[in-house]
């Protein structure tokens, strides 16, 4: 089984230096792109590969890049930003790539920046990733020394400067226009779209924001071609995926597997199944902002289309497992506390609705709930859904909520009828 992203990552060992990375073929794709290909050729390879963004929404990467104005009339300044904010609860996949092989990401960024002819790039990194920050700074310095970053890379006319920016916290820094505001030194509130960042982004210039995992694929696709990439997946969507599992399983961890691997294989083979004495009760397939699935969905392929068909999202591909000894209402309260706290306050439904949801859940958890509260929660699930707010935080927040009302209704009702939490 091919594992392009993680083939050179060894657990508990420092990542490869530039020299070591070059010995295994590193920076070859970058050299080829800059010396032999035109930006439009790179764009074509990426578009043909069907690579879809790994930041959560699955937007086709080639299509995103194609919106950037090109040619002599395009703005001179353009930016490429790597989204390494990774703050969604239950998500820890980008950390693996950042700590495991920063040169792979840097190479991917140089190629991506070349394709859109951006001369400046940022890695927007979460403050908590201290080890990654050190490794990235060291790798960027090595790449400058080798002449892979800076002016006239490899003697070509192309120049690209890359900077590390570490955030000062807040989930909204991961939302791409919030991220751009943070990079400009402002509050990380999102921007109204249009204009889209591809046309008017950082400091008003065309900007592409891509996830760590997305950009890390780029050198491999340029090296091996679009057809190779498509064949990596089990279900035709293209590529591998860094999956992860957390919760009370025997072996919580991350693995690179073909996109479309079933949940059953991920949870029971790779994560070793549930800890002794526990049963699987629910699954958040792609981080905190995805709809719950249950045991009946274990044979669903973890790709964008298949998870969508059963009413949830692939999201970040990191599964959070709810076991039968953990109270689902308590878990929901914990999730909605996070979303309420991280709301940026821009839209009324999100700013006022989420704390309300949090309070209702707390009162049910404490045994003070009423049956009507379940209708209120359902009402909020609708009113905070897609299309009513500036960004996807609120719709994401109600995904686990609406699905919990569907799958764990009896548990809610038991709390209300017995006036206490059955798990306490």
């Amino acid at each position: 089984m091919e594992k392009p992203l993680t083939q050179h990552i060894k657990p508990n060992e420092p990542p490869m230096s530039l020299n070591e990375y070059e010995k295994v073929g590193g920076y070859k794709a970058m050299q080829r792109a800059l010396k032999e290909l035109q930006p439009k050729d790179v764009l074509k390879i990426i578009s043909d590969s069907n690579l879809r963004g790994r930041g959560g929404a699955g937007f086709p990467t080639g299509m995103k890049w194609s919106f950037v104005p090109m040619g002599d009339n395009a703005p001179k300044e353009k930016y490429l930003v790597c989204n390494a904010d990774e703050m969604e609860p239950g998500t820890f996949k980008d950390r693996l790539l950042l700590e495991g092989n920063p040169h792979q990401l840097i190479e991917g960024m140089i190629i991506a920046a070349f394709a859109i002819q951006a001369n400046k790039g940022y890695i927007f990194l979460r403050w908590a990733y201290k080890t990654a920050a050190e490794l990235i700074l060291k790798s960027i310095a090595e790449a400058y020394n080798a002449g892979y970053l800076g002016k006239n890379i490899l003697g070509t006319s192309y120049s690209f400067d890359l900077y590390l920016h570490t955030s000062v916290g807040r989930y909204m820094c991961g939302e791409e226009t919030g991220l751009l505001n943070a990079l400009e030194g402002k509050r990380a509130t999102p921007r109204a779209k249009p204009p889209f960042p591809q046309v008017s982004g950082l400091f008003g210039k065309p900007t592409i924001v891509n996830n760590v995992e997305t950009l890390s694929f780029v050198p491999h696709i340029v090296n091996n071609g679009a057809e190779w990439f498509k064949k990596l997946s089990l279900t035709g969507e293209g590529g591998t995926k860094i999956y992860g599992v957390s919760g009370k399983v025997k072996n919580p961890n991350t693995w690179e597997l073909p996109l479309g691997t079933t949940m059953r294989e991920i949870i029971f083979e790779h994560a070793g199944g549930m800890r002794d004495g526990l049963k699987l009760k629910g699954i958040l397939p792609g981080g905190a902002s995805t709809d719950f699935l249950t045991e009946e969905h274990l044979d669903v392929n973890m790709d964008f289309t298949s998870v969508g068909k059963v009413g949830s999202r692939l999201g970040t591909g990191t599964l959070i497992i709810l076991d039968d000894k953990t109270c689902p209402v308590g878990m929901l309260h914990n999730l909605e506390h996070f979303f309420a706290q991280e709301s940026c306050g821009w839209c009324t439904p999100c700013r006022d609705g989420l704390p309300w949801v949090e309070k209702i859940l707390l009162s049910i958890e404490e045994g003070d709930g009423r049956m009507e509260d379940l209708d209120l929660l359902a009402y909020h699930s609708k009113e905070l859904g897609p299309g009513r707010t500036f960004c996807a935080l609120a719709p994401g927040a109600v995904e686990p909520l609406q699905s919990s009302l569907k799958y764990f209704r009896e548990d809610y009702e038991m709390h209300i009828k017995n006036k206490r939490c059955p798990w306490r």
Partner: protein
Amino acid sequence: MLKTEEQKELEEELKLVPYKKAATIEALKVVQKHRGWVSDEGIKDIAEFLEITPDEVDGVATFYNMVFRREVGRHVILLCDSVSCYILGYRKIQEEINKKLKINFGETTSDGRFTMLPIPCLGTCDHAPALMIDNDLHRDLDSDKIDSILEAYK
């Protein structure tokens, strides 16, 4: 006024941005690094240096959870209170710290040694529960380990 060291560091940052105001977050980081937290005085110093109003600086400062607008202890314990750590029992860890240090979230020990704050997911959910003290990540916590972890921070 910003201290000379702070000014020097900020001058470097200013080279990377098209206009001064864009360095607001970097300025907050610099001041917090040197003073441990960002006081009203710190806000005014930054505003003066960047030629914007103190309100503009404070608007940014209060948005971000890693800018401390209140004084914190010598070491800040950031305990993850997000979902995977909830499932794996961060509350027990919180209680243990509370028992040992007599502080809850948002509080500082009377000797100024520790402040404990809740923090969203530290991105190490496969090793939940987790916490950070200063720059160090501590993972796979259980109550028994807390004593020896705290011991290292004087």
